């Protein structure tokens, strides 16, 4: 069974909401990434999205753009990230998904990329610039290797939702806003109506992401879904730290706070 399913089943039994955290692989360096994953797991993260840094991340706001650029400036390559995942897997069975732009997979070689994902222990892929219409290029190869392609839904999806979620696996990535990633003070989407629509078409767990800037917002989002995705806020906290060790410490403290709030929320 895929680790993503195992995790959501486990959380369901415990009546807990999933805390999904995004970090950029290789920011500030790949050794720190390995330690960071292990530390934020310990702090309560349930699933980790590892961002493969990309030169032209059109779905991302400034915080993640800059984080990607730092990683690329350090020369991090896909093969380094694969090795790091292998190292993490020796010590942890937390579900891991890559957040990866399509050109990275395409140029690296779709089959090679997916085979390596399975070898090192990646459980799924989130590909923000590969909509439903392009999924056919990759999905058979991915499913044969038990790599999930996480379906993404946006507030503009409307009648596309049904098609997007047909045969969806893992969880549904529900984009909370019209816009790119990055923290917001508040969001204007009618989450209740939006999530009702999504729930109509899919039985797999839902997680809401984009725009979460603090514990209160995470708590708010978690009322409507089985999980909440936090990215830019964690990276911001790390980037503002004076050194790597402090960065890991602050990220872990923030994750811990988030997870506690999500636990409290179950009533």
């Amino acid at each position, binding site marked *: 069974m895929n680790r993503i399913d195992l995790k959501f089943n486990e959380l369901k039994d415990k009546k807990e909401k999933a805390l999904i955290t995004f970090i950029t692989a290789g920011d500030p360096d790949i050794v720190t990434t390995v330690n960071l994953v292990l530390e934020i797991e310990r702090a309560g993260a349930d699933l980790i999205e590892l961002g493969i840094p990309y030169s032209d991340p*059109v779905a991302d706001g400034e915080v993640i753009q800059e984080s990607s650029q730092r990683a690329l400036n350090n020369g991090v390559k896909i093969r380094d990230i694969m090795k790091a995942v292998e190292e993490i897997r020796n010590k942890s069975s937390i579900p891991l998904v890559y957040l990866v732009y399509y050109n990275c997979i395409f140029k690296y070689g779709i089959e090679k990329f997916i085979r390596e994902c399975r070898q090192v222990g990646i459980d799924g892929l989130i590909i923000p*610039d590969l909509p439903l*219409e392009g999924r056919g290029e990759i999905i058979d190869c991915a499913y044969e290797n038990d790599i999930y392609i996480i379906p993404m839904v946006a507030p503009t999806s409307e009648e596309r939702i049904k098609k997007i979620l047909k045969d969806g696996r893992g969880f549904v990535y529900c984009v909370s806003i019209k816009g*790119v990633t990055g923290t917001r003070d508040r969001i204007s989407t009618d989450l209740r109506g939006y999530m009702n629509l999504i729930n109509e078409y899919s039985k797999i767990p839902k997680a809401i992401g984009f725009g979460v800037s603090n514990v209160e917002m995470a708590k708010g989002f978690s009322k409507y879904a089985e999980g909440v995705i936090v990215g830019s806020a964690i990276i911001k906290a790390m980037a503002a730290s004076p050194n790597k060790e402090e960065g890991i410490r602050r990220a872990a403290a923030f994750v811990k706070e988030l997870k506690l709030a999500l636990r409290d929320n179950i009533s």
Partner: protein
Amino acid sequence: MKGRFGQFGGQYVPETVMNAVMELELEFEKAIKDESFLEEYRYYLKEYSGRETPLYYAKGLSEKYGGAKIYFKREDLNHTGAHKINNVLGQILLAKRMGKKRVIAETGAGQHGVATATVAALLQMECEIFMGEEDIRRQSLNVFKMKMLGAKVTAIKSGTGTLKDAVNGAFRDWVTNIDNTFYVIGSVMGPHPYPTMVREFQRIIGDETRRQIIEKEGRLPDYLIACVGGGSNAIGIFYPFIEDKEVKLIGVEAAGLGLDTDQHAATITKGSLGVIHGMKTYVLHDEDGQIMPVYSISAGLDYPGVGPEHAYLHESKRAQYVAITDKEALDAFKELCLMEGIIPAIESSHAIAYALKLAPKLSKEEVIIVNLSGRGDKDINIIAREMGVDLHE
């Protein structure tokens, strides 16, 4: 996937904009068949932009090079000084028809930005232009023009600060303001329907050329030559001739400091298959798919991708793609100034340079048409710098 040219093209965009591109596709298909829309488009092309543009026989230049007859399609004589306005008029009229209040655009050399700001002023739309920081530095005159025309110019600091980053910036804005904003893409690139839509708004160049050359020579040309960054002026002149197999189509990319260096923008010549800005096409990228920095003296040609229809014309061998260096383009620029009294855009100078290489090898009966896509006023500063002349007072 929709909007394919062979294996190229498609719609590789975030889910948030999928409904918007699908709506655009529908509205465009309706508009392009609607006589009242076309009438309005043609009205502005004629009365506002000054079409049709001349097909000019460069007698002096042809005689000097001693081979084929060289004609120039004078897109530089359009309002705002380049072919860009053909497409912008079409797209902004469509935006208006769709009830949008705000238009955004990316720009490299600033020509598309100026054209968009111009038509936005004409049709009273709110306008924001995204431009890379490096390009803002290189093209300060155009930046000032856009501001005079009432547009907001937003500098993009990320990445290399050039055209591709301006596209990223415009794209992010579009995702955020999808309800009220129309993204006016400046070339035959991006997700479907843009490559097709922009081609349809630029084919006026080739349609006129065809009529004009038959009038002047009583036959079709032997060669059509145009510069290719994204490739809109080239598709515009090529498209109506695609079925005429005897007409050879040549796209000229920017070889920058040379194809043997990493300082060029020759995407078809040196790139490989990839996905960029919503389309599958040739891309200059490394083995991990990271888009590589590109370079050309011309801000309008330094783009690491190319329109998917060009990729297809290359793969199917219907068109040939070559590359011209900065130096060759500069020499051609000077030559056109001295021999014909025309100051061409540095982009178009790449096409001229190739024509001047080719012409002497051909017979006097053969006919070359070069798309003179823009005028060179905007490039005077950079040309002066290259020549070691200080224009600052």
